[in-house]
């Protein structure tokens, strides 16, 4: 739909003019030749299907899949030519598969419809004939005047007409669009701003001309023509006049706006990325396997056809007297016959391609992904968020991650700035319980004395509480109930909004300490110092810019003194300071930075009235200058911001999230490389990196920063590469900044990747969003094609999240953009460990076994059929009855593998989490490597030979089976071909089911139920099927065959011996491998196995005291001891995975313990 829209919009220019003309309130001009433009309605459609097109469209989509199409072709071939099996045999499974998939997709689409309806049916107020009318969101038309009340989201892209303020301004936040949480001011043109009621608006004669819809959120060009007193006033419109759908009205009681873009033409809808289909590594290998099997199929069919003709060259086989050809057979042309024979063989063997593989995989993914959302360990109590799965296609990819690329702010950190320390006049203070406590003093020493601040302290606090651009929103209704940390303030409904979280943290801190910024009234900034209201007249604001790296306010104090407060980076303020304890402050600032705090230096300057006049004049001149305004402004600012009196410095902490260090450590132990990509500056990034354990103190940190040119960058890269080569004992960490990165990528991509890969940790700072995505792409496309995972929380991480193989959104404070575009969303970074190490591991093992097993069971299924051709003159005689052919994949063997693939746990979750090294066992898609695939396939062939020749020998030898005899209560036995086929089939169903049982390690009651149930069902079904003369079947070949079969004693003996002899080699292989070359996964199973405790879900279980603890210790010692010999035999491993895993038990078990 979206694509259609886009095509309509983007690639269909001839029908549309470049602009759209919108008549406000749809007051069309009266003159006749006006042709109203047609606009989309305000419905948001994210669903794919409607009731009407569901069937054809869904069918079309499904048959675009190679496998489905293949079966369709087979089905059609069966319909057209004389093939050995009836079309039902492939038609029914196909129908089944298609139906199940359609049901699943229909359900998903129904959910989307529901969500759409909720959005589209939301009540909105529209001005119609002079009064407010409530209607539904979907019925808004372009040109309607819409009223939006406070804290509501805009239902369409509106041009602001008026607000409840005279000035016609309003505040909005666009958090859900671009992740920016600060308040933005939008304004209306003065001519419409006066129309503040519905009736006045009705009288408005105006029209908006604007560009056609486009996706850019920050571009809007248009003009508003208002007819007043027969005079047309034209006003330009820009993005500051446009209120985007999805943004939220703040701080303003109500606004009126005219809808210009609606529905799918809103900028929000145009920004919906049609999510590119990500395909997992498992799916890719699955397709490879399919192609191999297709090859086997073609080979078998060709071989059979050739052999058939070779055989038939001898006339005694071609047409013995007992089997004359029909006229039709004699007359048809040789070539046609040849082709139809080939097709018939193709049909005969077509089940080697596992038809239900895709549908089972899909079901498994769909159902399996619920476990992620249900996981209590991924539930975050404070934010009431559980893990969210947006794409179930990538579950197993979570078990394959080799690189984690993570954002810093909001992902590793809380993105919740907390004022920690400050330095005032050379004395260091800490905030303890909302009070400033000088260093060395404890809270107790201060006693309960009333807060008293020295004048320096007070001035510092005032400076901090005045020098900012924070805005305030008063929440009367408290409708949102967001828990912003202002609870201990005087006014619980006051909320600060700031574009910089640091400023917000500072203002909140001063409020806690008694100096509260209460807002801007008119031209006054008001603060309450211990309850006493003070008004400062705001004279000028010298805005922040990246070159000056400071901002200032010019104020007139109540006493009449004119003051300048400046705040900024220490490098841009300290050089201009002339008084205050500069040296000490400098020391403190460095100290703060070492602790990972974000630092700001605060200074002030007092002006005499003459000085102020000079300043005022210069500022005015600069601001009104027509030429070189920027330079003159900078000049004026420089003139003002000097001769400063240093007041102090602040240290704000961006708190690390919980257990980030443990998580990163665990990921490293799991063999995953963690790269941090941040937009932050180098120093902050490095300090956070150090504090979260990404960089260690023992690491050798290499730097590739501030490179100016290609050649310089190349030299530096070469140098780094040499250092790594020379010194490969120690771990290396690499710091790159954005500029150097783009230089490095331009010239020396390979060298750069080489350096990066030999580093344990990489930190990229000063990264633009697109650069983040570029790094991901670079990793993805490097020769090893590693699986990447990107984690982020903000809109700036979206590109990276979409680019990576797996995108994880953190439900942070920066809107839902990242979450919406991610494949999985979690509340905290620490959940990544469980998501990857436990869920990823489990899902991978489940799906890998599922895929292998599917191919295996179909080889088992079809190979006897192939072998049988050698005994029936390649006449395409089927070995099994049609019903068995049909139901094998969809009934007899489908459920055990599905249940297995939903519940299997090779190792219990807590062990997986506490031993990240287990993750290495499954890395590089190891369970789906060509070797294991061949292993399974050969086993399938082997088992098939056992089935077929076992039964063959039995039949061939046994006099009573070859003919018939009277044994066991006068039963008459004679084995026809159907009996033979049924015998093979019975052996096969039992063996294939038991083979899966052998693979199963986690036997829940459901596994028992479906495993034994499947076998029982097969028997019951066969009795039933063979027990009745089915009226609608042409042949009654299977009548009583099964009963007769089972009434022979030797058949039972044969079934037992064939099944056992199939499974015995497998068991032997497993036992020997497990003993001689155990994987660490298997060893951790032993720990559990020995324990015999079923409740060891986490260490919590051992709450009884030391006895159990010592028991765990013993178990660990034992396992350590057990590992010794194997280590020797596996000395080829360069990095020993066992030591780290030991340590991880120690480090992470405490985490487990605290968790419960």
């Amino acid at each position, binding site marked *: 739909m979206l694509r259609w829209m886009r095509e309509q919009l983007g690639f269909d220019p001839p029908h549309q003019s470049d602009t759209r003309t919108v008549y406000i309130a749809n007051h069309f001009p009266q003159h006749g030749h006006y042709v109203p433009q047609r606009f989309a309605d305000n419905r948001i459609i994210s669903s794919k299907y409607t009731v009407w097109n569901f069937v054809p469209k869904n069918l079309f989509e499904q048959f675009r899949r190679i496998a489905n199409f293949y079966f369709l072709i087979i089905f059609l071939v069966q319909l057209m030519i004389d093939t050995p099996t009836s079309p039902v045999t492939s038609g029914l499974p196909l129908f089944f598969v298609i139906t199940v998939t359609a049901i699943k997709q229909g359900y998903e689409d129904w959910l989307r419809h529901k969500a759409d309806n909720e959005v589209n049916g939301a009540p909105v107020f529209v001005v119609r004939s002079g009064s407010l009318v409530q209607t539904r969101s979907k019925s808004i038309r372009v040109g309607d005047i819409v009223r939006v009340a406070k804290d509501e989201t805009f239902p369409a892209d509106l041009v602001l007409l008026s607000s409840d303020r005279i000035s016609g301004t309003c505040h909005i936040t666009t958090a859900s669009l671009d992740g920016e949480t600060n308040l933005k001011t939008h304004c209306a043109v003065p001519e419409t701003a006066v129309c503040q009621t519905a009736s006045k608006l009705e009288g408005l004669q105006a029209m908006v001309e604007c560009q056609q819809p486009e996706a850019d959120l920050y571009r809007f060009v248009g003009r508003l023509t208002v007819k007043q007193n027969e005079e047309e006033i034209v006003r330009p419109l820009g993005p500051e006049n446009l209120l985007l759908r999805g943004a939220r009205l703040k701080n303003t009681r109500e606004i009126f706006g005219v809808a210009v873009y609606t529905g799918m033409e809103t900028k929000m809808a145009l920004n919906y990325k049609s999510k590119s289909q990500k395909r997992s590594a498992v799916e890719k290998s699955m397709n490879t396997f399919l192609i191999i099997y297709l090859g086997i199929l073609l080979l078998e069919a060709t071989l059979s056809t050739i052999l058939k003709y070779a055989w038939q060259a001898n006339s005694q086989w071609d047409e013995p007297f007992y*089997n004359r050809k029909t006229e039709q057979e004699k007359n048809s042309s040789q070539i046609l016959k040849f082709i139809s024979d080939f097709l018939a063989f193709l049909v005969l063997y077509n089940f080697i391609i596992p038809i239900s593989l895709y549908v089972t995989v899909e079901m498994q993914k769909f159902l399996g992904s619920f476990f992620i959302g249900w*996981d209590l360990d991924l539930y975050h109590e404070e934010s009431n968020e559980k893990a969210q799965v947006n794409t179930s296609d990538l579950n197993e990819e979570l078990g394959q991650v080799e690189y984690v690329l993570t954002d810093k702010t909001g992902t590793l950190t809380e993105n919740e700035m907390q004022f920690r320390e400050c330095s005032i006049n050379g004395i260091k203070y800490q905030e303890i319980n909302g009070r400033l406590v000088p260093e060395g003093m404890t809270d107790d020493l201060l006693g309960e004395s009333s807060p008293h601040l020295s004048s320096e302290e007070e001035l510092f606090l005032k400076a901090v509480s005045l020098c900012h651009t924070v805005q305030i929103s008063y929440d009367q209704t408290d409708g949102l109930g967001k828990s912003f940390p202002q609870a201990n303030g005087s006014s619980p409904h006051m909320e600060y909004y700031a574009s910089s979280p640091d400023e917000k943290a500072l203002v909140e801190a001063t409020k806690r300490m008694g100096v509260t910024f209460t807002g801007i009234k008119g031209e006054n900034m008001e603060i309450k110092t211990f309850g006493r209201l003070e008004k400062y007249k705001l004279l000028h604001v010298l805005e922040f810019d990246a070159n000056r790296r400071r901002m200032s306010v010019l104020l007139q104090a109540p006493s009449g003194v004119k003051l300048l407060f400046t705040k900024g980076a220490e490098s841009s303020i300290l050089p201009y300071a002339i008084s205050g304890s500069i040296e000490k402050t400098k020391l403190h600032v460095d100290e703060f930075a070492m602790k990972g705090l974000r630092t700001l230096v605060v200074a002030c300057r007092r002006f005499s009235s003459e000085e102020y006049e000079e300043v005022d004049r210069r500022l005015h001149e600069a601001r009104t200058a027509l030429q070189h305004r920027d330079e003159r402004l900078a000049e004026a600012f420089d003139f003002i911001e000097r001769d400063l009196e240093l007041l102090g410095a602040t240290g704000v902490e961006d708190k690390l999230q919980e257990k980030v260090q443990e998580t990163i450590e665990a990921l490293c132990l799991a063999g995953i490389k963690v790269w941090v990509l941040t937009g932050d500056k180098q120093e902050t990034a490095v300090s956070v990196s150090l504090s979260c354990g990404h960089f260690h103190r023992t690491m050798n940190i290499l730097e590739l920063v501030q490179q100016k040119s290609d050649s310089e960058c190349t030299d530096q890269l070469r140098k780094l590469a040499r250092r790594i080569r020379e010194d490969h004992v120690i771990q290396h960490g690499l710091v790159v900044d954005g500029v150097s990165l783009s230089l490095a990528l331009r010239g020396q991509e390979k060298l750069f990747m080489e350096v990066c890969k030999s580093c344990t940790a990489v930190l990229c700072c000063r990264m633009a969003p697109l650069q983040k995505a570029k790094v991901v792409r670079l990793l993805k496309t490097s020769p090893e094609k590693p699986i990447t995972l990107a984690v982020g929380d903000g809109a700036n991480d979206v590109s990276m999240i979409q680019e990576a193989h797996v995108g994880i959104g953190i439900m942070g404070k920066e809107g839902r953009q990242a979450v919406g575009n991610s494949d999985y969303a979690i509340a905290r970074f620490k959940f990544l460990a469980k998501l990857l190490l436990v869920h990823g591991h489990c899902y991978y093992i489940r799906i890998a076994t599922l895929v292998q097993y599917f191919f295996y069971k179909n080889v088992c299924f079809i190979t006897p059929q192939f072998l049988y051709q050698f005994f*029936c003159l390649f006449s395409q005689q089927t070995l099994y009855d049609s019903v068995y052919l049909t139901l094998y994949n969809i009934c007899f063997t489908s459920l055990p593998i599905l249940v297995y693939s939903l519940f299997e746990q090779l190792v219990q979750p807590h062990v997986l989490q506490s031993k990240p090294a287990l993750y290495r066992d499954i890395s590089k898609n190891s369970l789906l490597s060509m070797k294991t695939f061949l292993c399974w396939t050969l086993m399938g062939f082997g088992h098939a030979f056992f089935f077929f020749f076992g039964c063959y020998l039995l039949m061939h030898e046994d006099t009573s089976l070859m*003919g018939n005899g009277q044994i066991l209560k*006068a039963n008459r036995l004679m084995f026809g071909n159907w009996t033979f086929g049924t015998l093979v089939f019975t052996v096969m169903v039992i063996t294939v089911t038991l083979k899966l049982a052998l693979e199963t390690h986690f036997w829940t009651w459901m596994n028992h139920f479906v495993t034994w149930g499947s076998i029982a069902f097969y028997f019951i079904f066969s009795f039933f099927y063979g027990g009745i003369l089915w009226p609608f079947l042409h042949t009654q070949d299977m009548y009583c065959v099964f009963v007769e079969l089972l009434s022979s004693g030797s058949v039972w*003996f044969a079934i037992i011996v064939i099944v056992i002899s199939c499974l015995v080699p497998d068991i032997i292989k497993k036992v020997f491998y497990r003993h001689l070359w155990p994987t660490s996964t298997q060893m951790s199973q032993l720990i559990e196995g020995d324990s015999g405790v079923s409740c060891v879900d986490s260490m919590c279980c051992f709450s009884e005291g030391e006895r159990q603890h010592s028991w765990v210790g013993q178990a660990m010692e034992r396992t350590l001891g057990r590992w010794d010999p194997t280590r020797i035999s596996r000395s080829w491993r360069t990095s020993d995975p066992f030591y780290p895993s030991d340590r991880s038990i120690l480090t992470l078990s405490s985490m487990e313990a605290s968790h419960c």
Partner: protein
Amino acid sequence: MKNQGTTNRPDNTAFDQQRLPAWQPVLSAGIVIPGFLLVGLAFIGIGVALFVTSRSIQVLENDYTGTGSSVHCSECVNPKTTPCTCQLNFSLSALFQGPVFLYYGLSNYFQNVRGYGSLRRPSSSCAPYQYDQNTTIAPCGSVANSMFNDTFTLYQLVNATRKTVPLDGKGIAWWTDYNIKFRNPPEVDGSLAAAFNGTVKPVNWPKPVYDLDPTNPANNGFLNQDFLVWMRTAALPDFWKLYRRITEGEYASGLPAGNYTLEIQYNYPVANFAGRKSVIFSNTSWMGGKNQFLGIAYLVTGSLCVVMSAVMLIVYAKFNSPDEDF
């Protein structure tokens, strides 16, 4: 935004948290070695029993194709000598334990080719044996048309006189085939022949279906036992089909030692597809007919299990740290 009132907290149930109680078997030596030993011994036991039983079953097979190595019935090989009767003499030195079954065997005969039975689609079609000069053939189809039509009579030579051994042709087909699956058309005026009015006999048959067994009028039509046996097509190209049982009179307990003559009405041509015909006397045991394979299979699997458990034991002892406590 989320409503604060409702919590998103997932349910803490064993199912949701993937903590269902489960049995987690590990293929450890402690289970596998004794397991293998037990299974192996059991299999060897069964194998010996099966093998011994199988050995006790007597089979007497005589090829009477008349060509190649077969000396019997060579006079009948020429298709022109019809009807041809030949004799097959054999002697038993000991009692052939009863009940004795008489089979005929065909080899190189592909009853399992597609299109032979009613397997050609549309399956109702019996082509090329549906119509003979526009009259419906009954029974139609290739299988029926090619029905085996050699007949055997067994004589014991007692004091140079031939004494007929009674052959029991009742109940040799599947009970369900005889009683349920196959049906004769309703008799017209008490005559089966009239019921088949308007149909002709299959091309290769010497007599119509209602006249298959002149000795027993109930054994005619589609319910003729030999016909039913033939209609159950064999799975493999070498097959035996039950012809008669010897269950009556003094032969109920078996064929006593002595000389016998089997008189064969040689009708069925096999030369054109290099097939062979034979006639087999055999008896059965509790486990069915003679079957060396099962016994051998059990013995092989059983001893493999035992050997493997021994090998495993050695491997475990050798490659294990001594303090291991499996």
